[in-house]
C-alpha cells in the first residue's frame, strides 16, 4: 500500500522549507499577468454601467473609434437589452496606452433608460418591490426546506430556548491583482493568454469553446497570480473581451479590471440573515433547531450557508431562500457558506450555554461529535488560558474589557482524480516536474519540489517545477475547495517513484544489486545490503545519454484523505468608551493531515484567521438603496485587515495522520464565532450582526444600560 512513510524517515516532507518562488517575489522579478509586457502591447478598458437597472436605448462608439491611438472598440451589450447591475459591461476599447484607453471610454456615448432597482435584501422583499427576475415571485427563490427528526417533540424536551436573528453582510474577495488577462494571437487559430486565474485548464477550455478552436491551440500561462480566493476560475467577460480585442487589432491586449470593477463584478461572498429558534435540554444537549434564512448572491442564486453547523442537532427544520438584487453576482469565496454559518451557530451555542449557566466549552464538548475537535478544545483552551475567561460575561472592570470565545469549523479537502504530471530525470542530473496546476499563493510549486526531492534524494532547489501553463498538455483541476495539494501530491509522488524505479533499473547491473536493494539519498544511489557500493547521482544519470527518463503518475487515493476539523480561541479587548474591538490573540488549532511544508501550511492558517478577522470586524459591502450604487468600491472605505488589526496568532498544525489534505479554506471559518463570542464575554452584550464595528458596540452598551 502506498504511503508517505514515517515522519522519522522524512528528510524534507513536514519540515519548514522557504518557497521556491520567494526570491523572485521579493526582488520584483516575479511576473504576474498584470506585469506581462509584449511587443506591440495594447491596453484594454471596459466601460461599465453606473446604473443598477436600465434599458440600453442607444450606443454610439464612433467618437471613441475616431480617437488617435484607439485601435478597436467593441460593444459588449446590445441596444434593447437590460442592464441588471452597476458595473455591467457596455463596451470595450483597446488603445496604444492605458491613458488613451481611459479617455476613449469617456467618449463612448450610451443612452440608458433607467428602471426601478432594488439593491438591498430588505428592499427586494418589500411588498410591491420592482420585480427584477421573471422566474422568482417577490424576488425570492422557492424555499429550500429540510427536516430531520421531530422539532416539536424536540422543543417539548427543551429546558431553555433561544430565539435570535444573525446577519453577515456581503464580503468581497479583494484580490490584490485584479481579474485580468493578456491575450495574444499567433495567427487566426492559435491563442496565448496570460491569465490571472485559479484554473488554467478551465480558462483554456472556456476560451477554446468560445472561439471554436481545438483546446490545444489555446495556451494559458499563469506563472504567478495575485490572489483569487475562489473568484478566478473562468476567463470572465474581461478575458473573452481581451481575446476579442486582440483578434480585432492583430496585437496583444492587456485588460485588467479596475479596483472599482473588481468590487462590483468580480464576485463576492453572499450575505446571510437567519432567524433561528433553538432549544437545549437541562443536561446540555441541543435538542431542537428551527431556522428560516435568506441571503443574496446578487441577481443570481448561490447564497447558501451551513445551518446548523458542526454540532449534533437531532431535531431540526431549515428553510432557506435566495433573494435577488440588482448587484453583481456572488462567486465562491474561501469556504463558501461556512464562515457565515459558523458565526451564527457558534453565537447560538454560546447563547444557549449562557441560558443553561454552562461554560460554553463544556456545552460544546457535549454536543460536538468530532473526536478531533474534542482534542483540539483541550489543546486550544490550554494555549489561550481559557481559565482566565470571565465566568460572568462583562464582569471585567475598567474602560477596556477583555473576553474570550471559541468557534469551530470543518472542511473536506481530500482532492480528486484528473491531474496528469510528468517527472523527468535528464542525463545532466537535472530533474523536472511538470503539471498543469497553478500556484495561487499557497505554495504548491514548492510542495511539488519537496515531494520529488524527497523521493529522489535531492534538494528542493534541485527540482525544476513547471506549473501554471497549459502548454505541456498535462491537465489539472482548478484550485478550489482546498483540493489542490491532495489532488496533485499523490500524482507527483507516484511519478517521481516511477522515474526513480527506471533509474534504479538502469544502474542496478553495474552495482551488482537488485533494484529492490537500491536507495537514493544525498545525491547518491547506494546498495542497502552493501553500503560500499554507491554511485553519485550525476554519474548515474550521465549514462542516460539522449534518453531522459520521463514518467507519469497516478492519483493514489491511499495517499490523501478528506475531512478536517478546526477550532479557534480568541481573546479580545473592547474599549467601552470608543467601541473599538482589538483582538489580542487567536489560537488556531487546524487539523490538516500531512503538512508537506509546515512553513507554508502555517502561512495559510495565519491567512485564514486574518480573513476571518476581517469578516468579523471590518468588511461589508455598502449599497446605496437610492442610487443603486456600491458606496465603498475601493480600499479606503472597504476595510480589509491592516497591520494594526493583526493580533498574536498561534497557528497550531494539528497533524493527526500522514495523508495529504488541503487546508486553504478551513482556517477562515471558526474565527468569526470565536471573536463574536469573545466580544460578548468581554462586555456582556451580544452583537448578532457582522461586522462588529464600534457603532454597534456603543449602541448595544447604551441599550444594556437603559
Amino acid at each position, binding site marked *: 500500500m502506498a504511503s508517505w512513510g514515517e515522519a522519522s524517515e522524512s528528510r524534507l516532507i513536514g519540515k519548514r522549507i522557504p518557497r521556491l518562488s520567494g526570491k523572485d517575489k*521579493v526582488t520584483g522579478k516575479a511576473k504576474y499577468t498584470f506585469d506581462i509586457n509584449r511587443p506591440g502591447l495594447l491596453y484594454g478598458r471596459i466601460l461599465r454601467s453606473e446604473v443598477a437597472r436600465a434599458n440600453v436605448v442607444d450606443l454610439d462608439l464612433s467618437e471613441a473609434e475616431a480617437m488617435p491611438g484607439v485601435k478597436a472598440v467593441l460593444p459588449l451589450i446590445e441596444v434593447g437589452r437590460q442592464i441588471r447591475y452597476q458595473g455591467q459591461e457596455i463596451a470595450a476599447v483597446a488603445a496604444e496606452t492605458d491613458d488613451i484607453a481611459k479617455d476613449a471610454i469617456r467618449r463612448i456615448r450610451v443612452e440608458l433608460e433607467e428602471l426601478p432597482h432594488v439593491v438591498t435584501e430588505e428592499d427586494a422583499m418589500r411588498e410591491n418591490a420592482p420585480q427584477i427576475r421573471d422566474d422568482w415571485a417577490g424576488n425570492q427563490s422557492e424555499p429550500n426546506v429540510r427536516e430531520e427528526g421531530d422539532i416539536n417533540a424536540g422543543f417539548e424536551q427543551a429546558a431553555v430556548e433561544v430565539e435570535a436573528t444573525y446577519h453577515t453582510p456581503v464580503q468581497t474577495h479583494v484580490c490584490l491583482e485584479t481579474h485580468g488577462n493578456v491575450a495574444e494571437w499567433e495567427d487566426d487559430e492559435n491563442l496565448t493568454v496570460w491569465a490571472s486565474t485559479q484554473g488554467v485548464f478551465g480558462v483554456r477550455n472556456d476560451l477554446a469553446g468560445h472561439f471554436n478552436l481545438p483546446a490545444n491551440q489555446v495556451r494559458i500561462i499563469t506563472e504567478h497570480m495575485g490572489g483569487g480566493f475562489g473568484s478566478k476560475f473562468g476567463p470572465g467577460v474581461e478575458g473573452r473581451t481581451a481575446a476579442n480585442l486582440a483578434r480585432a487589432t492583430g496585437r496583444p491586449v492587456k485588460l485588467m479590471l479596475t479596483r472599482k470593477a473588481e468590487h462590483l463584478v468580480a464576485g463576492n461572498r453572499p450575505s446571510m440573515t437567519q432567524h433561528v429558534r433553538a432549544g437545549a435540554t437541562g443536561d446540555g444537549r441541543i435538542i431542537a433547531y428551527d431556522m428560516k434564512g435568506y441571503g443574496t448572491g446578487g441577481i443570481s442564486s448561490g447564497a447558501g450557508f451551513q445551518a446548523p453547523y458542526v454540532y449534533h442537532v437531532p431535531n431540526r427544520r431549515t428553510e432557506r431562500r435566495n433573494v435577488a438584487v440588482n448587484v453583481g453576482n456572488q462567486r465562491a469565496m474561501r469556504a463558501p457558506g461556512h464562515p457565515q454559518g459558523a458565526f451564527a451557530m457558534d453565537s447560538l451555542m454560546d447563547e444557549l450555554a449562557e441560558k443553561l449557566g454552562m461554560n460554553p466549552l463544556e456545552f460544546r464538548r457535549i454536543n460536538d461529535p468530532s473526536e478531533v475537535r474534542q482534542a483540539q478544545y483541550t489543546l486550544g483552551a490550554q494555549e489561550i488560558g481559557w481559565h482566565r475567561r470571565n465566568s460572568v460575561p462583562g464582569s471585567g472592570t475598567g474602560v477596556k474589557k477583555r473576553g474570550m470565545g471559541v468557534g469551530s469549523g470543518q472542511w473536506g479537502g481530500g482532492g480528486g482524480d484528473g491531474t496528469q504530471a510528468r517527472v523527468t530525470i535528464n542525463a545532466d542530473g537535472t530533474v523536472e516536474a511538470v503539471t498543469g496546476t497553478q500556484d495561487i499563493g499557497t505554495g504548491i510549486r514548492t510542495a511539488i519540489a519537496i515531494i520529488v526531492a524527497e523521493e529522489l534524494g535531492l534538494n528542493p532547489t534541485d527540482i525544476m517545477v513547471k506549473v501554471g501553463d497549459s502548454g505541456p498538455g498535462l491537465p489539472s483541476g482548478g484550485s478550489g475547495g482546498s483540493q489542490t495539494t491532495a489532488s496533485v501530491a499523490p500524482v507527483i509522488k507516484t511519478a517521481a517513484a516511477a522515474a526513480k524505479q527506471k533509474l534504479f533499473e538502469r544502474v542496478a547491473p553495474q552495482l551488482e544489486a537488485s533494484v529492490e536493494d537500491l536507495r537514493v539519498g544525498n545525491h547518491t544511489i547506494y546498495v542497502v545490503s552493501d553500503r560500499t557500493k554507491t554511485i553519485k547521482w550525476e554519474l548515474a544519470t550521465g549514462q542516460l545519454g539522449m534518453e531522459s527518463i520521463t514518467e507519469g503518475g497516478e492519483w493514489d487515493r491511499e495517499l490523501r484523505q478528506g475531512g478536517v476539523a478546526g477550532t479557534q480561541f480568541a481573546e479580545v479587548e473592547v474599549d467601552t468608551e470608543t467601541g473599538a474591538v482589538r483582538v489580542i490573540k487567536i489560537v488556531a488549532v487546524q487539523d490538516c493531515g500531512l503538512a508537506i511544508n509546515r512553513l507554508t501550511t502555517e502561512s495559510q492558517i495565519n491567512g485564514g484567521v486574518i480573513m476571518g478577522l476581517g469578516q468579523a470586524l471590518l468588511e461589508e459591502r455598502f449599497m446605496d438603496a437610492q442610487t443603486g450604487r456600491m458606496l465603498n468600491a475601493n480600499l479606503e472605505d472597504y476595510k480589509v485587515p491592516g497591520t494594526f488589526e493583526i493580533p498574536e496568532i498561534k497557528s497550531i498544525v494539528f497533524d493527526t495522520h500522514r495523508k495529504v489534505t488541503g487546508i486553504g479554506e478551513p482556517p477562515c471559518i471558526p474565527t468569526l464565532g470565536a471573536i463574536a463570542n469573545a466580544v460578548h464575554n468581554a462586555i456582556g452584550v451580544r452583537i448578532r450582526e457582522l461586522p462588529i464595528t464600534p457603532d454597534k458596540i456603543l449602541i448595544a452598551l447604551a441599550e444594556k444600560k437603559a
Partner: protein
Amino acid sequence: MPDKEKKQGTNISRRNFLKGVGTGTVAATVAPSVLIGSEKAADAQTGDAVASATIQLNINGKPYQVEVEARTTLLTVLRDGIDTSGTNIDLTGAKLICDRGECGGCTVMVDGKTVYACMMLAMDAEGTQITTVEGLADGDNLHPVQDAFVQHDALMCGFCTPGFVVSSAALLSENTKPTLEEIKVGLSGNTCRCGTYPFIFDAVKTASKKM
C-alpha cells in the same frame, strides 16, 4: 539643486487633479435618461492631460529619458514607460492595486523616503533618486529584508510583497531596531490580502538584527 527643482514641480497633486476632472461623469448619471461620457466631460479631461514633456529620471542609479504627459504617474513610467532610446523600463515590481494611495502596493523610495508611486506625478520625480524593489539587492546578494522575507515565508501570492519589502527596508534605514508596535506603524501604509502579516513582522525583526 534637487530641492529647488522639486519646488518648481507642477504642484498638482493627483487627488486634486482627479477631483477636477471627475465631476462631469458623476453628474451625468443622476438624470433618468443617462449619458455616460458627455463630450464636455471628455474635453475637460483631455484638455489638461495631453500636455507632455520629456523628462530625466534617475531610477536605481540609472538615468532614463522619457516622454510623459502631465497626468502620467511615476508608477506608469516605471511599469509601462519607454525610454526615448526605445527600451521598455519594465520595472514591474511596484504594483497598481488600489490606484489611490491606500494599499502601498506601488511603494518606492524617492530620495530615501517611501512614496506611493501611483500618487506621484512623473514630472515631480525629476531630479530625485528613485529606488524600486528591483534596486534593493546588490547583484545576487539580497537586501537583509528580502532574505528575511524568503526565510520567514512573509509572502503568499506575493503581489503586495514588493511594496512591503520597500517599506520594510525604508523603516529599517530610519530605525534599525524597531519594536513590534513600530513595525506595525512603519508598515501601516501597506495592505496584504493573503494575510502574511505575522510572518512579515517576524521577517522585519530578523532583518533588523543584520542592519
